[in-house]
């Protein structure tokens, strides 16, 4: 398992949710492999990965729908590994929402409370309070099929939150909404979470969703968590080729460490045909093969040659995509290698580069990320 920095543990407090060596096998297939993870109280933790990476299986184990083959799950100091779903202090918002079609909105939201034998008057009060919180007052008598997609999503959220669970699991919570609605709902979800203080674990394949919602992200691949960190950590300091490539757009080149000093390194990159100078040390043996990842927005384009020799390349623009807020360029080096460059459109009338323009590419020595894995 990868070393995972846990804020709660760092602060000395016991983690609220703890996964220990969690493994789930289906026959010969290992869906989740030796996952250990601590989640602090009140966190929004996002499991991010492509489909089939095991993130949903992990979520289902937290909900109690799957029993781990190995390992254990602790919530608020209690081992819930073998506790059935109907006895866990955990609620889930399903990707399909799974609203009961034969019940009204109010009955759907009240369902969980009714299972606990809560008094009728209290149920009514809490249901209406919850419906008000998700802005669905007056919809209590509707059936799910009479609601829009966004309204259904909010009913599902209300139903999952009304029991005040210790942990709320959300499976692709915004996946079924259109883009505009998704952006608005993202912020509503976060503000609701802050108000209620419930710990969220979200599963998503959408990195933008993960970046906006999460306090921390766990990037998953093939049943393992490769890296855990804040959105900034994951984007700016990816720990491996996979994470660097998976999150956002990146130019990835292979290289060899030729100069290894504590305060800087030089990397020989055949694909770029130049030396990459990085202004911080890298923990790798000399001559080790490494990968250099440079984000497109961290490369500057210019017509005149900038001073210096390191981190400087000449190329020719082969593709231009104007996106409004930024322009994406594809720049070809003399040896045929292509780099992606994104330039923000700061001014309305600034001169932009065009197809076949000869350009210079340069980047700050702090920009490249060097990964060994």
């Amino acid at each position, binding site marked *: 398992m990868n070393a995972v920095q846990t804020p709660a543990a760092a602060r000395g407090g016991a983690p609220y949710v703890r996964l220990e060596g969690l493994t789930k096998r289906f026959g010969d297939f290992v869906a989740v492999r030796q996952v250990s993870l601590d989640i602090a109280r009140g966190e929004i933790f996002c499991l991010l990965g492509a489909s089939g990476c095991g993130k949903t299986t992990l979520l289902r184990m937290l909900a109690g729908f799957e029993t781990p083959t190995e390992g254990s799950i602790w919530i608020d100091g209690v081992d819930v590994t073998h506790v059935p779903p*109907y006895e866990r202090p955990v609620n889930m918002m399903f990707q399909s929402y799974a609203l009961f079609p034969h019940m009204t909105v109010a009955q759907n939201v009240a369902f969980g409370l009714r299972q606990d034998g809560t008094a009728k008057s209290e149920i009514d009060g809490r249901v209406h309070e919850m419906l008000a919180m998700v802005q669905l007052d007056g919809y209590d008598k509707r059936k799910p099929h009479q609601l829009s997609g966004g309204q259904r999503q909010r009913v599902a959220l209300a139903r999952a939150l009304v029991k005040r669970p210790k942990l709320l699991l959300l499976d692709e919570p915004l996946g079924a909404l259109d883009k505009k609605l998704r952006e608005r709902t993202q912020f509503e979800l976060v503000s609701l979470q802050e108000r209620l203080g419930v710990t969220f674990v979200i599963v998503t394949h959408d990195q933008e969703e993960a970046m906006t919602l999460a306090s921390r992200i766990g990037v998953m691949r093939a049943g393992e968590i490769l890296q855990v960190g804040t959105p900034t950590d994951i984007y700016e300091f990816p720990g491996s080729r996979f994470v660097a490539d998976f999150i956002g757009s990146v130019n990835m080149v292979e290289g060899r460490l030729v100069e290894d000093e504590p305060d800087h390194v030089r990397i020989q990159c055949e694909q770029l045909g130049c030396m990459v100078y990085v202004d911080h040390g890298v923990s790798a043996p000399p001559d080790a093969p490494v990968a250099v990842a440079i984000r497109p927005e961290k490369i500057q384009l210019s017509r005149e040659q900038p001073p210096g020799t390191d981190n400087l390349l000449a190329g020719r623009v082969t593709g231009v995509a104007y996106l409004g807020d930024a322009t994406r360029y594809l720049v070809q080096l003399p040896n045929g290698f292509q780099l992606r460059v994104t330039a923000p459109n700061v001014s309305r009338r600034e001169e932009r580069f065009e197809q076949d323009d000869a350009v210079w590419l340069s980047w700050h020595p702090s920009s490249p990320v060097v990964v060994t894995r």
Partner: protein
Amino acid sequence: MKPAAASRLGRWGVIALPYLWLTIFFLVPFLIVLKISFSNVQLSMPPVEPVLTWGQDHVMQLRLHFSNFAFVFGDRLYIEAFLDSLLIAAVSTVIALLIGYPMAYGIARAPGAWRNVLFLLVVLPFFTSFLLRVYAWMGLLGRAGPVNGLLLKLGLIHEPLQLLQTEFAVYLGMVYSYLPFMVLPLYSAIEKLDLTLLEAAADLGCRPTKAFFTVTLPLTREGIFAGCLLVFIPAVGEYVIPALLGGPDTLMIGRVVWDEFFGNRDWPVASALAIVLLVLLSGFVLLLQYVQSREREA
């Protein structure tokens, strides 16, 4: 012919064909039976008076005898036969539901490869004639049949039981024969049920047994209605099973109609009984559909 006209003709053809079929093989026979039910017995072939006659002086005479209906409703025998039929059919339907639901549930939840095999097994009895299967039960339940033989061998009984010609045998035959009609609509209803709804119920603190009654059962109600109708309606008018397996005291309406028609050669009364049965059952179906449509709107 222009293509548009041809396609219109095709469309009408598709709609008209089943209606034509129903007209020839349902509506016309029904009208004939209706006509006979208002007729009177006479010694001729067919043994009924014509309802419509051309009399003297070019007078068209329509003579409707309501006496048959009066007779049917006046005689306790027929009323009891109706009530008996409804009772036996209702009890058989409930038993078929109680057996059929777990069966359908098991099939719908079985792993993929098994499901087809189990499904085929439910339909398999249809490959043999219905009459043959009921005859087989006569052999099985007879005094010297294997059921009595087994019970004797096990020492549970000391002399053969009278199984045939009992109400028990009628129920057995009914449930056995109509069970597939119960299982099939139930299966399709249960199979359609979204399993994440049950997970959602469990997630919200609902135990599996309770989830069955609060989620599974209400959401498969359409299948229950359909299955019950498919069993109840033919069971009410069933003739073969009570005739072959039932005793003299099992008086079902199908058997009474047969007796009136072939035994007494009283076609008008037999027809009147058939009409009353049809009206009764149509009433049931309409009521059920009304209840269902109201539920769907709510």
